[in-house]
């Protein structure tokens, strides 16, 4: 069954309207996609998920599954599957009883119930310990049980609240892939909440980046990483060096001037930019190349990470936007052989096609066709 989720100008307030957590948020989640709500803690992502689930009341606007408004439908009648951060496996039931639990509230023949339980337990690979009590399962196994339990009821939507945050790094990658595979196989519309940007990039069809209850940008992982809509997104997802700069415009020829007199010719800047306009330039560590001219920097330290070498550098005063004067760049050990030592002075040139440019307040991208959400 295909389900789209429409979130239309919803408001979340606490304390009789004195505290507004979500001031009016709209999103459209497509059928069958894995849609991630990403943001720092306190940004309202879990609150929004719990509003979709029905655990939090909705103070304004509406949420629809297809055309049905669900605001006043109690949780247990919404037909959702939810996976919790702490798994929430019932400790007094066996693995199989846990998976079967939700089916008991649906009118199903005993035969079908058993079949569906068994099938899903095979899919998530927990069939061999169906009779165990959950306390004897590892974290990864518990997460599989939670996933099976949520999916077996054939919910309209699957809601996942930081499901991987209690697992160790290696398991996280394994289960991440499992979730992704099963979600695609079942084709269920999924809303996924996380604060881990790497996880979001790896798993999602689309991501909504949130801050203070407001959606900053919605897009595919690649688009969000390479063309962030504002400084917040560019620094929250991946690392970015923020450099002070200004626009130099002669007719349609646009250039970005950086501290120390270096300049970058850009062909993808918005037509609204004005000559002399102050800007913030965002350069990712891998978007710097060693050059004969560019931003002067002194290497402070280097960290060898195998595939990459990671350098911390110090720029001249007033080069870096905001406070501080340090920056980061990485060198691909497979591509370069130049050995750089702490104390070396060098020049770093940004790659014109890759870097991003923002208004000086950091709120709006000046790259053509990149818009803040809303």
């Amino acid at each position, binding site marked *: 069954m295909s389900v789209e989720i429409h979130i239309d100008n919803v408001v979340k307030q606490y304390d009789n309207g004195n505290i507004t957590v979500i001031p009016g948020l709209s999103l459209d989640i497509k059928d069958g996609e894995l849609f991630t709500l990403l943001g720092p803690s306190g940004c309202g992502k879990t609150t929004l998920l719990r509003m979709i*689930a029905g655990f939090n009341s909705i103070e304004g606007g509406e949420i629809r599954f297809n055309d049905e408004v669900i605001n006043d439908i*109690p949780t247990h009648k919404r037909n959702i599957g939810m996976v919790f951060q702490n798994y929430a496996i*019932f400790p007094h039931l066996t693995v199989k009883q846990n998976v079967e639990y939700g089916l008991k509230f*649906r009118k199903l023949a005993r035969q079908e119930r058993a079949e569906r339980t068994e099938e899903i337990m095979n899919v998530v690979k927990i069939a061999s310990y169906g009779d165990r009590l959950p306390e004897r399962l590892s974290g990864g196994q518990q997460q599989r049980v939670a996933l099976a*339990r949520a999916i077996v009821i054939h919910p309209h939507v699957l809601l996942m609240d930081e499901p991987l945050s209690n697992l160790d790094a290696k398991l996280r990658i394994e289960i991440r892939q499992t979730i992704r595979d099963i979600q695609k196989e079942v084709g269920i519309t999924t809303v996924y909440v996380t604060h881990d940007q790497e996880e979001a990039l790896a798993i999602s069809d689309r991501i909504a980046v949130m801050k203070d209850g407001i959606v900053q940008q919605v897009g595919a992982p690649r688009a969000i990483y390479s063309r962030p809509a504002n400084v917040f997104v560019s620094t929250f997802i991946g690392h970015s060096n923020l450099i002070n700069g200004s626009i130099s415009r002669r007719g349609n020829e646009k250039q970005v001037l950086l501290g120390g007199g270096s300049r970058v010719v850009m062909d993808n800047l918005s037509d609204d930019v004005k000559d002399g306009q102050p800007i913030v330039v965002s350069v990712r560590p891998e978007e710097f190349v060693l050059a004969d001219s560019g931003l002067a920097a002194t290497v402070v330290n280097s960290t060898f990470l195998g595939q990459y070498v990671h350098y911390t550098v110090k720029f001249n005063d007033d080069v870096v936007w905001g406070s501080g004067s340090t920056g980061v760049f990485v060198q691909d050990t497979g591509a370069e052989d130049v050995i750089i030592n702490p104390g070396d002075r060098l020049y770093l040139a940004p790659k014109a096609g890759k870097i991003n440019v923002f208004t000086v307040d950091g709120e709006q991208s000046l790259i053509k066709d990149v818009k803040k959400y809303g």
Partner: protein
Amino acid sequence: MAKRWRKPDFWTFITLGIVVLFALFLVYPLLSLFINGFKDSSTGAFTLSNFTRFFEKKYYYQGLINSLMISCCVTVLAVLIGAPLAYFMTAYRVRGKNLIEILIIISMLSPPFIGAYSWILLSGRSGLITRLLEDWFGIVPPSIYGFDGILLVLTLKLFPFIYLYVSGALKKVDASLIEASESLGCSPVKKLFTVILPLVLPTLLAGSLLVFMNAMADFGTPMLIGEGFNVMPVMIYSEFISEVGGQANFSAAMATIMVIVTAVLFMGQKYVVTKKSFTMSSLRPIRPARMQGVTSIAVHAAIYAVVFLATLPQVTVIVTSFLATRGSRFLSSFSLQSYRTVFDSLWDAIANTYIMGLEAIALILMLGMFIAYISTRKKNVLTSFIDMITIFPYILPGSVLGITLLLAFNKQPLLLSGTVIIMIAAYVVRRLPYTLRSSAAILYQISPSLEEASISLGCSPVRTFFKVTAVMMLPGVLAGGILSWITVINELSASIILYTGSTKTMSVAIYAEVIKSSYGTAAAISSVLTLTTIISLLIFFKFTGSREVSA
């Protein structure tokens, strides 16, 4: 934006029901107690004379002083016995530790007045030890009656509270804290006073208050063994009983004074404990060390002596229950005569105790779970009102509660005096806190997401409570429930005021038999009661697989 009206659900009705119950059986009776205290007994006019009479006559205010004095002494002694006992039992290997713990729990949970009664049998005027000393050595031992006797009996009865509290706290002290102090050059004795004692101090204070309150409220012990030594609960009871057909205004005033004293103490303790409290959790508990030589012998001797004295009353009662009697005297031959008398003439008391006890415990378990749930998960104005009300049972001595209920329900349209309902109401109000506290404690450990998971899977919230929450709460509910049950069947101080012929209980019967000097029958019923207590405990231990009773 306008506030949305939440549709009333199952919990709204439960909350309202509980508020009504509390208002009816606690708030309204307490108010009528206070009002009665300010009324003139003949005219019914408002007056302060009941209170001035109390503070003017030495006979009365001496009772309050006596109560405070005895409670202070008992508390100090209980701490001096219970705290070192807990320390040695935790920090060192003690032979027979499991048995000792069970004996301590049993002596704590035995009927409160059995201690007094046994000590009368042992060293009263014609007691076993008294006669032994007189006949063989010609020594007249000090009298067991009065201050000394109350002190002895209550200390032996109440030190287990300190023991259980402190050893619970000691189990949470991480061994690394002690190792840290040793590595910093702290000597063993200094370690005890600079590290361990401060860590368990909040718990020790909480336990001390419990002991103090219990000593202050105890009615049976001073009534049986106090003789001339008057304390508040006894005075309240005798004033109340002697005012035949009167309004009992003076004893209402005395009860009010007592409630105020205990309330002040309770608030003071809460204030101190919240200021001083911290949480501990131990990854690596203290490992018991081995004792050597003389120390080992001395410590073992002391521990066994304390436990022997604490269990002596139970043993005495059970042994004497099998002795043949003539009048109030025990003969040296064995017989089942006392039991025959009990089953012939006092069968009602036994049946009443079980039936009313079961009814009360069923209500207590249900209310305990519901109140714990609404006050942790459904916080609102009404549940905080309920929270506030539930502290009253802590500060209401049993005899005061008895009088309170009787004054409130002795006339139409609320005529309940003499009924089973009023007895059960008293039991529920008095003994609910144990179950409530342990239920709330376990609920805090159950993640709300388990309930949410169930609801998200299509189970309605009410069904979820019974299918998931209640099932997982059960171990915690039972840990307090066992205490509620045992203290319900042993309840004396409220029962003695509320009972009539048809609602007489075992503890009331024991009291009546002791007063009549029918020591044999008293011993036999006491044995039945003690046995019930022990069997209940054993079933509980077996069922839960633990020895954790949450006192």
